[in-house]
């Protein structure tokens, strides 16, 4: 029953992506571009070589983390829209460790940097969580505001007290060698953080789907009255979910520093937390779905750059096509029920007709 549902979901998801790609093809045609060349370049760009695959996976690292962060918070019924801010603080925290304790070996330093990012992100999420459960202040608006505050605060820090001496870039110094996660494929920024992410994904899957804590979080999010009535400490679960969510975003930031840029940069995230949120929403906060959809988004991003470069299809058209893909995926269940009830009605009418006859 459940298996069947999953398969059905996958099929209709696939169909909606296909439908949007067909619309995309028409857009390209209308622009005098060859959609076949375009899509070949897209797929090739995402998976065509070792480097391309690596790049695709490099893109998924922050998406998986921020996606999982969204999953746990939205499941608990408290909406953490503040991932971006938590990511920035986490990234800065990791960088700070990396430029301060320069003599630590990686085996100590990296966990320490991750711990710092986790704490920074977690604490930054704790604040709106407390405002929510204690004073009933809407967490959506608070976390949105805190995003900008974090970006500005880190921007101040890297421009003044922690500004890099060289490179005039609005960033910290390079973190010490021991902290730098090694790259896995030549030229690509894919690095060992992907292994950490794999482990974190498994832990999060386990936490959300297999433990009593995950169960409680889900129940709290669905019906907090029911949960409290059933003996769950609702506030504690909400705060827990929010803090874990913030910590994950913090770690996402840390990996940008430890694995990609090797320093904190003023504009380190192009909105990873937003993309992660979108991904989590699309897969209805399912952790496995988050991982798969992140890979899809990573591929789309990597592929579309190649497509742009190879065919000259302008990037803005690609974002139009992307938005259509998102619309179709989001409309998937709606289209399905529309079609289903249409078919069911026809069948019933037919049946009734036969009986009457």
């Amino acid at each position, binding site marked *: *029953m459940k298996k069947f549902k999953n398969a059905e979901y996958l099929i209709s998801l696939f169909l909606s992506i296909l439908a949007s790609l067909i619309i995309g093809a028409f857009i390209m045609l209308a622009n005098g571009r060859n959609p076949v060349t375009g899509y070949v370049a897209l797929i090739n760009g995402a998976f065509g070589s070792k480097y391309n695959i690596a790049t695709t996976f490099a893109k998924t690292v922050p998406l998986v983390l921020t996606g999982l962060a969204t999953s746990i918070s939205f499941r608990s019924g408290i909406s953490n829209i503040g991932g971006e801010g938590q990511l920035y603080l986490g990234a800065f925290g990791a960088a700070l460790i990396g430029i301060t304790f320069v003599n630590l070996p990686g085996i100590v330093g990296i966990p320490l940097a991750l711990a710092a990012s986790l704490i920074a992100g977690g604490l930054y999420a704790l604040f709106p969580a407390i405002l929510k459960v204690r004073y009933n202040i809407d967490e959506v608006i608070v976390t949105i505001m805190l995003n900008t505050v974090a970006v500005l605060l880190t921007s101040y820090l890297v421009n003044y007290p922690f500004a890099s001496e060289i490179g005039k870039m609005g960033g910290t110094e390079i973190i010490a060698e021991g902290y730098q996660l090694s790259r896995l494929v030549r030229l690509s920024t894919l690095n060992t953080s992907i292994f950490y992410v794999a482990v974190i994904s498994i832990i999060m899957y386990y936490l959300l789907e297999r433990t009593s804590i995950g169960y409680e979080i889900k*129940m709290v999010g669905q019906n907090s009255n*029911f949960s409290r*009535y059933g003996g769950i400490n609702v506030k504690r679960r909400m705060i827990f979910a929010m803090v874990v969510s913030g910590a994950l975003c913090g770690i996402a930031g840390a990996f940008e520093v430890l694995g990609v840029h090797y320093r904190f940069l003023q504009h380190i995230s192009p909105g990873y937390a937003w993309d992660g949120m979108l991904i989590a929403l699309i897969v209805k906060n399912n952790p496995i779905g988050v991982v798969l959809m992140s890979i899809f988004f990573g591929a789309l991003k990597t592929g579309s750059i190649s497509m742009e470069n190879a065919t000259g299809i302008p990037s803005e058209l690609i974002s139009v096509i992307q938005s259509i893909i998102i619309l179709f995926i989001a409309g998937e269940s709606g289209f399905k029920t529309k079609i289903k009830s249409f078919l*069911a009605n026809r069948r*019933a009418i037919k049946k009734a007709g036969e009986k009457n006859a």
Partner: protein
Amino acid sequence: MAEKLIELKEITKQFPGVLANDRVSLDIEKGEIHAIIGENGAGKSTLMKILYGLYQPTSGEIYFKGKPVSIKTPLDAIKLGIGMVHQHFMLVPSFTVAENIVLGVEPRKNRFMMDYRKAVSITEELSKTYGLKVDPNAKVESLSVGIQQRIEILKVLNKGADIIILDEPTAVLTPQETEELFKVIRKLVEELGKTVIIITHKLQEVLALSDRVSVMRQGRLVGTLKTKDATEQILAEMMVGREVLFEELNRIEVPREEVLTVKGIKARDNRGLMALKGVSFSLYSGEILGIAGVEGNGQSELVEVLTGLRQAEEGSVMIKGVEATNKEPMEIRNLGVSHIPEDRLATGLSKKATITENMILGYHNREPYATKGIHMNKKPIRERVSRLIKEFDVRTPSQDVTADKLSGGNMQKMVIAREFSFDSSILIVAQPTRGVDIGAIEFIHKEIIKKRNEGAAILLVSADLDEIFRLSDRIITIYEGEITGEFKRREISKKEIGLYMTGKRKGMRQGGVQDEEI
């Protein structure tokens, strides 16, 4: 023969996976009170919603005064003079009574502006005409269900309805309120020439009120008969397809021991008003203590205080000698208290969660369902739930469907199954059979008695006096947040207890007066 006002012909309604109505044909005559009965999920509401334009039939036709009509939206139904009072009230909580009553047909000052004053005067006018008292300016969210029921009826009448459909209007009413409602219905039919269709699970009501009665089972119409030819037994049999025995429940004597002591509890309701003004009583093992009262007199708040869902401002609660005042629900559960909440949808379950998820709550972090309280073990969980589903006869296609797919009666059985499966020594049971069909009522009552006979202490809160009288070993009455009387089983009659429930009499009854039959 009376004029056929409405004819439903071969109505079929297919929901994805459920055939809710299967070729149902039914006539409604002008000026009659037509009762429709049937088990939970038999398709009664669906049929009425089709008549009211909320659903479209998959096939079948509707004739109105002999002519075929197509009722695409409620507006079409309203134009034909059909009005419907829904099982779950269709009132906007933040709006005033007047706003709700005129919703959709607002009086206007000009093309655009609503005339609120006129709405108030319309409300007052209606209220006077039909003898249903309401305060036009009160916000609906602050009103009791009884009053909300009145508003619903006024709303329908205001739209000029000649045919009034009432879907389980009495499920949440006290006997007094029910009696009042019936008076209004009779008045509507006899004096104003209206036609009434009423859905109910209470067979006495059918017999007392209706002219004809139709019985539905599993989407089909089993038959329609004149009420004067019907008896409870006949109807019950038609409904469930087998004989239903209302047997006397078997009680055995169990050692009594005080397990719950409530002293001087004061607490406020959601609006901040004092709802409990110093309530004290004790509950003993092996007894069912019924709390009788008109709804809104503090019962809900009392239950919430006892179960940790609401803070008491004064007073104390002792559970088995342990101080339990204002403890968290979890701590109270750990003391061995189970709770059937009055509002199953808001509190008793999560509609979006599966049956399994709903039924494991409370056990989800105990061995063997969770290793070390963390790792949840699928197999024992599924086994437990499927056993409970069987034991409590919860009708569901699978334990993996979400709870919102269950009919109201089955939702209730699910909640009861979960709560009764805890080896709790105290059960706090509120409105256990609200909106539940007779088969299920019988089942639930037996389960409650079984628990009692096993030595559990049960606090029963119900708006249904029959239920209170049938189950309770002891009854206390509550009025405006105070206890007004305490009676042993068979010490007081249903009529008399009404005086205590409405605050007209207070204090302990002395001596035993023979109770009327129950």
